[in-house]
């Protein structure tokens, strides 16, 4: 353009005022948004210890960890064998059984369907594992998704065996 206007003091004031206001508004946005994140009291409850001495093979218990159910299942020999036999190509979310357990007898996983968060029912479904009634997801004896809308295997939380009878989750 032939008549490009010179940059004036006023242009400078305009732009810097707008820039400072925008930065200020963004800064105010941080606490307004962040207050909704999990707070200190919620985070403080982040681990749970469980006594598993009374669980016999083929039995499972459900404990609450961070407000979520965690399944602790003492698997039978048959279930373990089934979980190991599956061909990796048959899995929508490929993962071998060994990577999902610390001790093959104990399967510890978050009992929340990875589709939309319902709690799957145990000893059900086409693969003798878990079945989620909400929208029909089938999981196998290793908690891996086999059929249905759920995208991934049931999640394995961080846990350790404190001794033979105690598991610490989280």
């Amino acid at each position, binding site marked *: 353009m032939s008549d490009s206007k010179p940059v004036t003091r006023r242009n400078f004031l305009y732009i810097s005022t707008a820039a400072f206001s925008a930065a200020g508004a963004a800064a105010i946005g941080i606490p307004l948004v962040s207050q909704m*994140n999990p707070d200190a009291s*919620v985070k403080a409850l982040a681990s749970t210890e469980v006594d598993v001495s009374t669980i016999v093979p083929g039995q499972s218990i459900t404990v609450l960890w961070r407000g979520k159910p965690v399944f602790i299942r003492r698997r039978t020999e048959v279930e373990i064998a089934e979980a190991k036999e599956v061909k990796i190509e048959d899995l929508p979310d490929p993962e071998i059984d060994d990577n999902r357990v610390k001790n093959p007898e104990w399967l510890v996983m978050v009992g929340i369907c990875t589709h*939309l968060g319902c709690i799957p029912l145990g000893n059900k479904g086409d693969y003798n594992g878990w079945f989620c*009634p909400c929208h029909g997801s089938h999981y196998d004896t290793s908690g891996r998704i086999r059929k249905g*809308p759920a995208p991934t295997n049931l999640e394995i939380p961080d846990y350790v065996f404190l001794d033979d009878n105690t598991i610490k989750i989280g």
Partner: protein
Amino acid sequence: MSTDYKPQSAVAKWIDKRLPLITLFNGHLMQYPTPKNLNYWWTFGGILTFCLVTQIITGLVLAMHYIADADLAFSSVEHIMRDVNYGWFLRYIHANGASMFFIAVYIHMARSLFYGSYKEPRELIWIIGVFIFLLMIATAFMGYVLPWGQMSFWGATVITNLFSAIPVFGESITNWLWGGYSVGSPLLTRFFTLHYLLPFLIFGLVILHVWALHVPGNNNPEGIDVVQGSQDTVPFHPHYVVKDVFALLVFMIIFAGFVFFTPNLLGHTDNYIQANPLQTPEHIVPEWYFLPFYAILRAIPDKLGGVIMMVSAIAILAFLPWLDTSKVRSAKYRPLFRQFYWIFLANFLLLGYLGAQPAEGIYVIISRIATIYYFVHFIIILPVLGFVEKTKPLPKSISEPVLNDKERAAKAATAPA
């Protein structure tokens, strides 16, 4: 309207000079010129306003007794039902009021679809309406969570988990929404806050909706423009005030029928069991008014895909004024569109039925076909119809179709060549 209203009393004059409220109300609720041929499908705007006000008033008084805390919410609602004076009555009005609100809004939208009320020059009225519908969905969903029954809890879980479908940020977004690692007290408190706020935003949008309506004026069953300065219009008061009030009374009788005789018919019994994060009910279903969209969500075998389709099913409505390429508004003069309209409506109802069935076997297959048809209607049928359909000749004015032959001949003779 030639009769410009002037306040009469000294007080009214004094106020109106400083704040012309009386003139404003007079112009928009009394003198407002309205096509004289509006049928009863046009009374639902007034009915919807009544529903909104009812929800706000009953909601305010419920909020005086309700406690938004995961440990106390369920018992505070039982307290409303058993101890609070007329608590059962107020709660049943509020709970059934939400259903009545949705019945009315679906009829109101179906009316707009049939008579082409979303077309030029009324696009913005329609788009503001779509936003009102979205806010209503959000409000009703969050309201249903408040009693903290099993359906409240698991409905909240399933719906908030929709956000986990977002790639990469999904988990942080859901944790942020929950204020924790699962649905619990923090979510309940924020839902209560928003459930309280949103109806007032809806109220604001309703004002914009009516404002935008009063610029071009109402559409009408013929779908043609009002002839300026003709006898096509009548003042809103008393003609439509009376018609609206009559329709409203009929609506209130039905509403009262639900409240007094079958207050829990539209609800779900599982919601009288307190929320239990360790047990999912056998069969999770949303409130009836969400069922068609829920069916679309479940029809898609992929998590993210399902969420995208469900959101698109509503979002696509906002583009309707441009998807429908026909210049003729009313379905009365569109013989082909009229048939597709009824098929679309039947398909929508079918989706609603499917949303309540378990997601297995034949239901899944029919859901998929119905979902595809829903989108085909908007993306293919409507745009194409505008080009291929031979519409019927439009009347010259609103008065013309009701004149008898003799009068019409007389009119034609006097009409300028």
